[in-house]
């Protein structure tokens, strides 16, 4: 599948209030072109909730629903079961941020996955709690400065590494898990299509660069996704029932440093910190590709 095959119909309209250059709207708009009109959307509390609509206005052109922050897994389960009772084939999709997925929402998510609910769960990962003002999450990478892990004189940013959420979801052995980047158009669209067509629990995890929180020029959003993949900070793979079925390998691996440059959240990095992050990437690389980077 190619972007030329995508329809012109827009199900997430312009007029939304995301920051200029936000990575999330193109993800959402394009994925909705694949999912189509017979879709119900749930969003928990996050940037997407807020920039996607302020009463009485809404960017969504499909039925839209919000309850709270930590319960996406349960909310989409409830909708899906009611529809099953009504004999409907509508796609039920929850779109949560990394905070709503890795941290406060992991319990409801795990429960829904374990029950193999017939839903799609999407995590758009901007690596912090952006809606509340850039606080760290379980997804924030090592060293990154956030408002709760500031680059202080004593503690230089976040001390812990990013949690491997996609692996946790793969361990649930659900029908489909995929990690995605919008910069990889064809891969992105194929995975979205696959997710649409598979039955049972599907988990899509998409990197969503945030110019405001990561502090980079808004024109570089797509570039950031690309570099995240090329550096190994973000890995693209697919898994079915826990088995990895497809891994994307960057043509040329770039040093982590090249990804960090240009992002204000890493500006305070010392060479040792760069090295520590590189070590983490290399370790992951080896685990995934089975070879030394």
């Amino acid at each position: 599948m190619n972007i030329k095959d995508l329809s012109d119909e827009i199900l997430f309209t312009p007029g939304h209030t995301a920051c200029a250059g936000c990575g999330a709207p193109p993800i959402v708009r394009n994925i909705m072109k694949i999912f189509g009109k017979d879709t119900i959307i749930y969003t928990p509390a996050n940037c997407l909730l807020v920039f996607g609509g302020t009463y009485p206005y809404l960017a969504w052109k499909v039925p839209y629903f919000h309850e709270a922050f930590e319960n996406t897994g349960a909310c989409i389960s409830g909708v899906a079961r009611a529809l099953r009772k009504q004999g409907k084939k509508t796609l039920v999709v929850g779109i949560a941020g990394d905070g709503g997925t890795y941290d406060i929402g992991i319990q409801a998510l795990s429960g829904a996955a374990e029950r193999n609910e017939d839903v799609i769960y999407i995590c758009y990962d901007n690596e912090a709690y952006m809606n509340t003002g850039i606080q760290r999450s379980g997804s924030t990478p090592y060293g990154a400065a956030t408002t709760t892990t500031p680059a202080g004189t004593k503690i230089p940013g976040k001390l812990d590494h990013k949690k491997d959420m996609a692996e946790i979801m793969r361990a649930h052995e659900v029908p489909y898990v995929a990690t995605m980047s919008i910069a990889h158009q064809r891969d992105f669209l194929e995975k979205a299509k696959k997710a649409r067509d598979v039955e049972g629990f599907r988990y899509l995890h998409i990197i969503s660069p945030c110019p405001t929180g990561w502090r980079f020029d808004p024109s570089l959003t797509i570039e950031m996704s690309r570099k995240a993949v090329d550096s190994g900070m973000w890995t693209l793979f697919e898994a079915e029932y826990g088995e990895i079925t497809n891994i994307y390998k960057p043509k040329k691996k770039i040093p982590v440093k090249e990804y960090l440059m240009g992002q204000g959240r890493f500006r305070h990095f010392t060479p040792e910190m760069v090295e520590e992050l590189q070590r983490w990437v290399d370790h992951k690389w080896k685990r995934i590709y089975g070879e030394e980077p």
Partner: protein
Amino acid sequence: MYEIRFHGRGGQGGKMAAEAYALAAFLEGNYAVSFPFFGAERRGAPVKAFTRVDDKKIRIKTQVYEPDYVVVLDETLIETQDVLEGLKKDGTVIINTQRKPEEVRLSKPVKCATVDATGIALEVLGRPITNTAILGALARATGRVKIESVEQAIMEKFGARLGRESGEKNARAARMAYEQTLVGTSQGGKEFVPRPQWLPDVHEMPIGGAIGTMKTEAGLIGIGSFVENKTGDWRTFIPAIDKEKCIGCRFCWFYCPEGCISMVEGKAEVNYDYCKGCGICAHECPAKAIEMTREVKA
């Protein structure tokens, strides 16, 4: 008591300016409060902040509706909204612009002070952060606080966050603005149509707030209605597509966060009603067919 309303864009530091001014007034023995309009606006959206100053404790907790002074950090805002709304009869507006007061067109002719805060900031700070320079102009135009107090407030407030050197530079920007501010009278006559709001009473309010799509006096509401929100006025940079160069690859169409690029006869076209000027399209265009320039608003 006097009241000030600051107009800026999310991320420009209007709130910091309002707070720093309150601190300056406090340093001169006044009582001062400052608060932002708490909205859900993201970076780039028009936002407001307020400061109130008095010689005794300020008890009122409402928002400011009839300010004595209006400060505009971003010139583009005067094109899309009536910044003079509610301004007291002999009030003053302070605008960041290269223009002279007499060249500025607003809804009414009013006492107007102008300063090129962006130019000063670029010169002194190396970045177009205007929230400190504009305070110099405010001090000059109103005479309510001494420039020395503004400098001290900036050092305290910005120095604490960004380091002493940065605090000093910001104070210098304020001083320069103070010296370069022009005071005069603006032109009037510019018309603004206020955007109508849908305000249902309890009988019209849908149960549980659930809505489908409805046409109201305020336009479309409900499902798919955000198209009513023209985000084009967030923009400071504007893309121009060279149709000759465009190869119709659709990359810009795919990546544009606003979804405001459409393909017309195989060529990309921008709907400027929504374009926020992020520059992604230009950066991603493989044919280098898109150029971003600083927008000059008529």
